[in-house]
């Protein structure tokens, strides 16, 4: 029972980071209609900023907010200079985001280096809950994620803001005829999603080391999570994250570990083909051109 609970919290903490990045993607892809391949790099930048701040002596939790702000700004700049021009041709936006991800990755390599970065456990405590030892930081990661998911769910999905976003993604012009300030909302969602990526990066580096290549490793899981659950569906991102977490755990126990990543990929491909709108149902993203 003890081991189970520990493993559960461990898996959940990993799944949390995946959920955060997936949530960012599902909102941006599903509700703002932008496919941002550089989202993984956004997370990586968040982690790196956290690292820099912590190494400079800043308290982790303040550094975390610093990372969120930094990536939020990054997102704002990217949207205003790049993605806003491709709202009518999302394919071009996707290709540009490939370029952006290459740039970010290599700029970070240049500025820092390829060596992995890590920070000491910010809390370095072990809580005893019900007689079971639990690493405090992991539990906190899960807690933070739960709070953020709740905020996002009620703040975006369930609010009229969410309805407006869904309308905008399905028909931009008609949404404008309803009085919806589509461009402004798109920018807002993009910034919010980017902030989530920054948070994910900060939490990730609190748990394990990251490298400039971490972005490209997580991005595909992020897309997997959002596509499995359904684009624009916050609950779906949670389900997707848990599904992938489960696949990982099962593969570690019963499968061949080196094929772990493969299983998640296959799951995603299968769901994409059989049910493109995801398990919980979501938008189909921008009308692809």
């Amino acid at each position, binding site marked *: 029972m003890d081991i189970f609970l520990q493993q559960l919290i461990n898996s959940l903490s990993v799944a949390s980071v995946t959920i955060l990045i997936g949530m960012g993607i599902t909102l941006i892809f599903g509700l703002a209609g932008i496919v941002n391949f550089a989202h993984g790099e956004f997370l990586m930048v968040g982690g790196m900023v956290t690292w820099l701040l912590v190494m400079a002596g800043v308290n982790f939790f303040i550094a975390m907010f610093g990372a969120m702000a930094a990536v939020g700004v990054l997102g704002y700049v990217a949207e205003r200079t790049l993605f806003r021009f491709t709202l009518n041709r999302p394919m071009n936006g996707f290709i540009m985001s490939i370029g952006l991800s290459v740039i970010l990755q290599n700029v970070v390599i240049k500025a820092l280096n390829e060596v992995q970065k890590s920070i000491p456990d910010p809390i370095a405590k072990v809580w005893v809950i019900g007689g079971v030892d639990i690493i405090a930081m992991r539990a906190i990661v899960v807690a933070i994620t739960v709070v953020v998911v709740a905020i996002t769910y009620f703040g975006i999905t369930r609010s009229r803001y969410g309805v407006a976003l869904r309308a905008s993604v399905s028909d931009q*012009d008609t*949404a*404008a*005829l309803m009085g*919806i300030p589509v461009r402004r909302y798109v920018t807002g969602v993009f910034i919010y999603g980017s902030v989530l990526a920054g948070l994910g990066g900060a939490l990730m580096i609190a748990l394990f080391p990251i490298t400039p290549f971490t972005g490209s490793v997580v991005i595909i899981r992020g897309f997997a999570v959002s596509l499995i659950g359904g684009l624009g569906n916050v609950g779906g991102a949670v389900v997707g994250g848990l599904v992938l977490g489960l696949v990982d755990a099962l593969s570690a126990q019963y499968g061949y570990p080196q094929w772990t990543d493969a299983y998640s990929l296959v799951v995603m491909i299968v769901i994409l083909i059989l049910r493109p709108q995801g398990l919980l149902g979501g938008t189909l993203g921008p009308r692809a051109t």
Partner: protein
Amino acid sequence: MTLLQVEHLGTAYGPVTVNRDVSLTVGQNEIVTILGPNGAGKSTLLRAISGLLKPRSGSIRFDDRDVTNTPADRAVGLGIIMVPEGRKIFADMTVRENLRLGAYARKDRDAVEEDVKLMESYFEILAQKRGAKGGELSGGQQQMLAIARGLMARPRILLLDEPSLGLSPKLVKDLRAVIMDVKKTFASAVLLVEQNAGLALTVAERGYLLHNGRIVASGPISELRDDRLMRDLYLGNTPQGH
């Protein structure tokens, strides 16, 4: 009092010019129609007025305020509401959600709920189908929903882009009654764009004829009906009994 004043408006898509030198007015609570064959540039004109398209030249004034370059979402706040060509209902959302979306720009949330009930009582079909997804409605029902959605915004002027397209004669009659009510009960002006003159000639007070992007005739409906150009362009399309 002139509500909408368009002067020497020119529109284009990239290198292709659509409208040239279009001038028209709509008075408070008037029903005005713009007629013209396919490709005359009627929809483009409405898109410019509603704010979806930036005009190349000329000006648009609403309530004596320059709205030439005002984008659509802000135009809604001023009371310029368009019911687009092809209805453009949000197919994945319910009838009620569609209605509420129409009132998105409004701040008075309680009144909005009142208006939803009002629309449902005025358009019975909306009450019956309130939980259905927009995509499940028939063409005629969608048209009524689209107009109701437009009315939810409490328009000062309602721009209607070819509402009779694809509707049966019976539905067109219902549509006529609705448009008259938009003026009488909902106290809004109407700018009705139509290819098929039948509906327009029976409901409008004044009209303009658009051809190749330009206004070629205008005047009170009775004159327009007998206008030679009208007959030339609409040979065979004269309204049969109204």
